[in-house]
């Protein structure tokens, strides 16, 4: 009887314990999950690294993976007059011909990748309380990364859904309601301001103060806030960065003094390498060749590139009438004295430079020009001259016109995902791209300056998400 009593008590106790939440929702012991993971600062730091992993993207040729910055050139370069596909075919050729469909897998991938990065940043922000000594740093990094993703989204897609926290799968109203660009820019400015205040310049492949200031400068230039942009550029100029004396070393001497923020990759490493370098070659990657240099860009580089031309494009050794990008070669070029970066070109380790010092110097000129058609300001001319001197173009300049600045940005930053954004920001896109499109028999109209919202997202939203005009 007594024994039976004990068993009863035991059974009741077990029953009481088993009523706890853990019984119904056990934490997996053989794998890591987000719930309950972020308990220490070092665990949160792995969440911080995870954000950069999101920007890095998956080295894959399938559009079901988030390839993020690895496919950004399709939009930032091939949608401009700088590059095109080698063979004018396939989904990729929709960009150069201004015929991008809402079903295009590349834009779908990029859009999804940016929201994946935003989710990763919001996850860090939601768990900041576990950080002890690095709370401000982590907050700055997460806000920098979030602003980076939104700045890309808002420039490419216009009004987009704005998620400033981790959302539940059922919060579909937030996920699919597009908000105006000014509201998106408000978040970007506030995030980058926090990042600039919280960070220092310890890293180049993670967010830094200079990186946040430079990106904020470009945001202000985009919005026409020239005074803010100028003072931010001048802060970066005073932060100890410098132009590499030799243009080639900017790309083949990683972590050099000119780099302000880059995405790191490791050679021959399936998890942390990139494949865009091989896609730009002749049938080395999955495509037959993309991001091939247009005749227009060849002409501009020949005329205005100086020492930069040889390290910007080359003749394709297999098809001599075609031209390839020389920046970020995975397998080297003996004639140019560039060593192979990886033994397998598809697993390239070339870092992707997001912001470098020359960009900041030219933004400084743009800020002083302040939307005008030229500037004769000494500070602007000094910044402009510094970039040209490095390229061996030492003729003294006494004024900078808007056209000269646009041209200089084109040849200095060729194929670094600036051209399309530069044309739009400086108000030259419709004029330049209309002429380019007419000359090449493409299909440009003003609505092509904003990409379509991916059809997949519209379908997921049950039609709540609206499409951009012209698609």
């Amino acid at each position: 009887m007594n024994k039976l009593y004990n068993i009863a008590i035991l059974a009741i106790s077990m029953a009481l314990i088993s009523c706890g939440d853990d019984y119904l929702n056990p934490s997996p012991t053989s794998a890591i999950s987000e719930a309950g993971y972020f308990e220490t600062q070092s665990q949160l730091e792995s969440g911080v690294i995870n954000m950069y992993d999101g920007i890095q993207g998956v080295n894959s040729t399938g559009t079901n993976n988030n390839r993020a910055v690895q496919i950004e050139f399709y939009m930032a370069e091939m949608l401009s007059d700088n590059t095109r596909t080698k063979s004018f075919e396939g989904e990729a050729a929709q960009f150069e011909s201004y015929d991008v469909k809402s079903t295009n897998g590349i834009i779908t991938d990029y859009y999804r990748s940016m929201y994946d990065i935003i989710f990763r940043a919001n996850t860090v922000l939601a768990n900041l309380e576990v950080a002890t000594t690095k709370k401000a740093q982590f907050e700055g990094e997460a806000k920098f990364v979030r602003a980076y993703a939104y700045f890309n989204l808002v420039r490419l897609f216009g009004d987009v859904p704005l998620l400033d926290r981790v959302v539940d799968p059922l919060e579909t109203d937030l996920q699919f309601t597009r908000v105006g660009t000014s509201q998106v820019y408000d978040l970007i400015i506030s995030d980058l301001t926090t990042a600039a205040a919280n960070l220092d310049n310890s890293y180049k492949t993670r967010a830094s103060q200079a990186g946040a200031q430079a990106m904020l400068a470009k945001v202000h230039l985009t919005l026409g806030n020239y005074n803010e942009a100028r003072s931010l550029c001048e802060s970066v100029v005073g932060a100890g960065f410098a132009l590499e004396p030799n243009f080639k070393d900017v790309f083949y001497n990683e972590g050099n003094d000119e780099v302000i923020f880059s995405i790191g990759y490791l050679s021959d490493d399936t998890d942390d390498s990139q494949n865009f370098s091989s896609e730009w070659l002749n049938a080395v990657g999955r495509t037959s060749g993309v991001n091939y240099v247009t005749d227009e860009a060849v002409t501009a580089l020949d005329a205005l590139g100086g020492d930069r031309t040889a390290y910007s494009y080359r003749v394709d050794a297999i098809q001599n009438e075609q031209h390839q990008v020389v920046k970020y070669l995975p397998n080297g070029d003996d004639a140019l004295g560039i060593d192979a970066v990886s033994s397998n070109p598809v697993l390239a380790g070339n870092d992707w430079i997001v912001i470098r010092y020359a960009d900041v110097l030219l933004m400084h000129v743009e800020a002083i020009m302040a939307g005008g058609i030229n500037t004769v300001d000494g500070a602007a001319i000094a910044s402009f001259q510094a970039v040209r001197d490095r390229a061996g173009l030492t003729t003294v300049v006494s004024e900078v016109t808007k056209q000269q600045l646009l041209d200089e940005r084109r040849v200095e930053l060729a194929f670094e995902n600036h051209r399309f954004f530069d044309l739009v920001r400086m108000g030259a896109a419709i004029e330049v791209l209309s002429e380019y499109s007419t000359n090449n028999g493409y299909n440009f109209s003003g609505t092509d300056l904003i990409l379509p919202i991916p059809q997949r997202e519209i379908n997921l939203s049950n039609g709540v998400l609206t499409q951009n005009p012209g698609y």
Partner: protein
Amino acid sequence: MKLITHKFGMLFSFLFVLCLTITSCDFEFDLPEEGSIADNTLPTAAFSASQTDAEDFRIVTFTNQSASATSYNWDFGTGDTSEEKDPSYSFAGEGVYTVTLDISDGNGVTASVTNEINVIEPEEPDDIVPTVLNGDFDGGQDDWKIESFTDGTTSPFNSSSDGSPVDYDGNDTGAKTAGAKWTMGTSAAHLLSGNSRFAYQAFTVSPNKTYVVEWEYAIKNDATDVTGGDRLVLQILDGHYSDGKDALTAPVLSETVGDDALGKGNFTVLKTEFETNDSGKIAIWMFGVTSEDAYADNIKLYPKG
């Protein structure tokens, strides 16, 4: 009987046809609308406009942002219209224009939008402010030598300590400063020789603008005169030159002559306006034609206004 049967037969046939007719009148054929669904994507009208021509600010390109429309009617507010999707239109000049876009879809559903378009003439570009190197001659002959001089000398003048008592910034100190000096032996024009000296400096300025060249000169005394009078000459040459021989025959945009002999140390300021050329490449070219020592100082070049 057979006739009657026949008549009845006809009657029956008639009735049968009548019945058929009546019955067939009860049928309703499907109308085209039957089974179709309502058009829920009605046209919406929107557009943006931008001044896209760097050469002509009056040309405005319209970007049609309308959805679900098939025909477009633009009214530019000037009496002109267009049925293009993305038209370009050249307005008469600066001003605010009311532009209306009427659109319709295949069902004849219409929508309309009206925007005010502000056509703005871009500001005049800022004029280049050139820097005159060693304009106060404190650096002796520096920056005033032409690259080469066939049958001549690249030496531009005699360095002198008898320059103007006014500093380059306009501050009159009363103490003489460095200057440039020409003598009988270094004179040019009809006195041209292998020893003639010419000061040369090249500049890039804004094309087709009015600039001012300003300088000071003094002539020692009026004792003797060369043909045409003792004088210093400052020319603005059209273009850049590397050989003095070419500069001698170069086209001249402007010439200023200083010929008042007020005595050593008594400087006169001369200002001359001139129009720059298409290329913006100009040069200062100075020489003396004088029997008495003549001095120049504080050479300045700047846009007018």
